[in-house]
């Protein structure tokens, strides 16, 4: 691991410069160990693909002492230290072109049928590498066969809940935002709800599966979510 100062209040703990489940597991294991053991002067951490950004209070710890502690924890950071992940089931409607408006285009680009794309997409267990950029947005891996170049022309608006693929990743947009990913379907769940006691649904390390629902079930769940009576399936 490498330690790179990020100004006077943070240090970036960097693992191998690649996107992989193995490297990201080290990041999350270090994050977990920090939370479990506690580190003097440490304020908060931000995991990402291959780095952990550690915010600290320089009045409470010296930079060298902090790095020494983190180095010792990083040496133990592997999958063995992590508790079992949460399993999250996300309902997703692929069967309405109004919601999954890029499904046909993605299928054509991948030389697959619509059914094959949906079967591949629902048959995979996704790892959330981390949540980042805008509130509640999960960065996930994706089935290899669904690896696809991003849209030639990014769209300026993607509706909230859009389940999409781009590169070797799957992503869900929590808020109306610009995007260059192919939208295969939409989940009626809110990934970010500022009025909820826990505004964000997903966390780094969660395992996600998509459950195929039809438009009628989509509308029913969306109504229950709006009424705050829907309980997401998290094990």
């Amino acid at each position, binding site marked *: 691991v490498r330690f790179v100062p990020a100004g006077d209040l943070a240090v970036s703990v960097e693992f191998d410069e690649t996107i992989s489940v193995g490297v990201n597991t080290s990041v999350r294991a270090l994050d977990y160990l920090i939370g479990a053991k506690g580190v003097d002067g440490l304020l908060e951490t931000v995991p990402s693909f*291959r780095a952990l950004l550690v915010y600290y209070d320089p009045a409470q710890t010296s930079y060298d002492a902090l790095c020494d502690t983190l180095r010792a924890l990083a040496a133990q950071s592997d999958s063995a230290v992590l508790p079992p992940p949460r399993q999250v089931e996300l309902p997703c409607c692929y069967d309405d072109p109004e919601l999954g408006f890029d499904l046909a285009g993605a299928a054509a680009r991948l030389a697959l049928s619509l059914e094959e794309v949906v079967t591949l997409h629902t048959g995979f267990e996704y790892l959330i590498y981390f949540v980042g950029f805008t509130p509640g947005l999960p960065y996930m891996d994706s089935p290899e066969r669904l690896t696809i170049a991003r849209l030639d022309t990014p769209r300026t608006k993607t509706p909230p809940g859009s389940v999409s693929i781009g590169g070797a990743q799957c992503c869900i947009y929590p808020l109306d935002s610009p995007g260059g990913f192919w939208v295969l379907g939409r989940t009626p769940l809110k990934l970010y709800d500022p009025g909820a006691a826990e505004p964000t649904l997903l966390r780094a390390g969660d395992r996600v599966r998509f459950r195929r629902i039809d438009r009628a079930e989509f509308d029913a769940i969306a109504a229950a979510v709006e009424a705050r009576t829907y309980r997401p399936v998290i094990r």
Partner: protein
Amino acid sequence: VIRILDAGPLTTIQDTGRVGQLRFAIPPSGPVDRRAFVIANRLAGNADNAAGLECTLMGPRFEAQAVCAMAVTGATMPVTVNGAQAPAWATIALKAGDVVKLGAAKSGVRAYVAFSGGIDVPVVLGSRATYVRGRLGGLDGRALKRDDVLKLLPVTAPAPARRTREVPEYTNEAELRVVIGLQADRFTKDGIAALLGNPYEMLPQSDRMGARLKGPKIDHVKGHDIISDGIPFGGIQVPGDGQPIVLLVDRQSTGGYTKVATVCSFDIPRLAQVKPGGRVTFRAIEVAEAHSLSREDAVSLARAVMEGP
């Protein structure tokens, strides 16, 4: 109780911000100029993290509906109480019915208003700070508007009269100390020399998320994309156009653009007060020096406020 008569273009409720939520990509929010904010609270007899107002370029007009103490700091916005001039950077006693107005900023960008007790809005994820983009915290997650009513938390004793030893001068120019990195190796020598050797102009598109600057191009070695990673407070992101963006309190938690350096936290208050068209320069220091300057800054803040009218 405070009733808003005119909100001004962007007035939000802030406390010192949210800690521990960046992992869910919820930013800390809080005041951009933390120093001026904290001083306002101390002048009003509050704890540093009491909720007050951040006012941008033009202040609000409001009515106090009960006795309270108030203090205004930050950008130089002329303060009047019932039309009569009142001092900034000092405790002001208000009685029921007093109408306070903060005018347009003569210098600086962001003014802070603290009320004794602090503003009473719900604590969301550990903080009362408003994050407007995420519709979170403050008053319904939004900027203030006309006819909003702000309750104040009770005080145990009236705030004594206080003032500051010095009033900062906002000259619309600031030298900012930076620590090089996180991706210094992704920039050419000339690129980093450009950053450290030239003034950069503040652009009007700047906001609480980031200060957008314009100046000589900061050249990359090979492209501007990185594997997305965490963006520190003050991180200077440089996208493909070579123009720097200093990321602030409402920043995105992570990003995929190269970062050339990080502005030290104790210099962000001065950056916060540079108007569009104003200029900033950057000077590189090592982490050890940054921490020694940070200690000096804490000492100077601790003695900024003195007793007496």
